[in-house]
């Protein structure tokens, strides 16, 4: 009998995913930022710029974070299982890799505000915010970073939950997708109290002022979503059967 072989690099999956995803995120963000700032200049040709364009554009990357979560469980997890890794070690490493990718994305999105600040300063435009945030001005970078981290975390967790359900059985997806969407709606509402009317009730319950946002409440809601999504996802993937491949 042979000794059980071990891959020399115990974190090979996390490294592999991070390397691929970090490069993809950098490329996509570069294109995204170039497009957003070009669009701002295009708008400036017709009307004065009074608001942060980056704030509006930042709606899109959260969907990307959700997509990363879906890919994590519906695409990469089965791939790594097929290449001789267990569900447990794949999920552990994929979670680490996704956390790294989300952090990079949050840093880049925060950097977008800084770049926009420089451009607006040169052009003489005010970098006003429309929505409520954890931060009250577009140069409060630590809180901007924290908000993106919290948002992307919830979106990725919801995506991973929905992705695992859809892969396991599309019928489960009918249940999981609304639950995942509910998670992100609650998270968004916690960060932007004007997001939905019912946030007043949620905000009141959590001690959030209607015209402000509490870092504590946002953290509690993010952790709550994670506390719901993590075990639910694990329940779905711990014995996930791989779908059959067609020749």
């Amino acid at each position, binding site marked *: *009998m*042979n000794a*059980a*072989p*071990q*891959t*020399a690099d115990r974190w*090979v*999956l996390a490294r*592999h995913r991070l390397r*691929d995803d970090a490069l993809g995120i950098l490329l996509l963000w570069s294109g995204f930022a170039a497009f957003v700032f070009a669009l701002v200049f295009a708008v400036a040709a017709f009307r004065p710029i009074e608001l942060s364009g980056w704030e509006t554009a930042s709606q899109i990357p959260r969907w990307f974070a959700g997509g990363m979560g879906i890919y994590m469980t519906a*695409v*990469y997890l*089965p*791939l*790594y*299982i*097929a*290449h*001789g*890794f*267990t*569900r*447990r*070690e794949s999920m552990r490493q994929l979670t680490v890799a996704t956390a790294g990718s989300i952090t990079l994305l949050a840093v880049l999105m925060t950097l977008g505000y800084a770049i926009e600040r420089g451009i607006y300063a040169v052009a003489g435009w005010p970098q006003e915010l429309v929505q409520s945030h954890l931060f009250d001005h577009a140069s409060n970078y630590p809180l901007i970073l924290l908000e993106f981290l919290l948002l992307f975390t919830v979106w990725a967790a919801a995506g991973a939950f929905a992705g695992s359900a859809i892969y396991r059985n599309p019928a489960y997806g009918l249940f999981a997708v609304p639950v995942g969407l509910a998670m992100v709606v609650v998270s968004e509402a916690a960060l932007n109290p004007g997001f939905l009317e019912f946030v007043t009730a949620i905000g009141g319950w959590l001690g959030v002022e209607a015209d402000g946002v509490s870092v504590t409440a946002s953290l509690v809601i993010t952790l709550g979503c994670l506390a719901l999504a993590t075990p639910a996802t694990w329940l779905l993937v711990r*014995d996930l*059967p*791989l779908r*059959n*491949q*067609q*020749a």
Partner: protein
Amino acid sequence: MTGELELQDVTVRYGDTVAVDGLTATLGDGQIHGLLGRNGSGKTSLLSVAAGFRRASGGEVLLDGQQVFENPGAVRRMCCIRGAGDTVEHDWPGDKVTHALELAATLRPRWDRGWADRLTQRFNLPLRTRLGELSRGQRAALGVVLGLASRAPVTIFDETYLGMDAPSRYAFYEELLADQVEHPRTFILSTHHIEEVASLFETVLIIDDGRLMVHEEADALRARGAAVTGPAEAVDAFTADLDVLATTRLGPTRSDTVYGELDDHHRRDARERGLQLDPVPLQDLFVHLTEATDRAHTHSATAPGGRP
């Protein structure tokens, strides 16, 4: 670098459907095992459980005594190629043949990069082509490369080479056999090209309706089948006490395919009756055995008192 795979009372259920029904077998290490069965007989379900791709509904799979499912030490020693192999395919720029090979090189602890390169050339695989643009045969060839070059102690090919043309299939058999001599490992081949690959098999498992029908050394199985040809009356008398799987008639001549070992007494008897005894190709034996089971099912379903 080999592994012995034990299937202990393995059952796979999908709702009310039983795909594999309490199957027990031991697949010896360093051998090439042929897994045969008709469509829907449970081959893919069984192999998926064997490789840890699916948890068995009942029973267990052990590799050298260790449980396979969710055991890193066991699953890392297995490589199961289903169809064209598991690759990320979205036809994005990063989903090319070369990336599928790089992924395997990164994740497979015993990956033989040099051999993978040679195999890629031998099968004319275009490295810079997107996976979604490969022909069926090229995709199958990629699966073969991923499985062979993995050098996993237990390597399973589940209908992988169906789409390959004859020269490519023969190249695959040649590579597999040559490597088996140099680096023995346990192979399980599930195939419909039985006769073509039969000479590689050291043992043969035939499953039908999820149950193990035959598990024998390939040579012993071949010796169990014989075609008895001659005058109809003589054949009839000779095979009266034998297990006849199939009968064909041409005028006064009749040929019975019998299953069971023919001893010296039988052979002498056949000679005296002027009957000819010929070996039966494994594929014919497989067809007759599984057809006989079908007939038995039909009979029990229609016979008075038979359970449907």
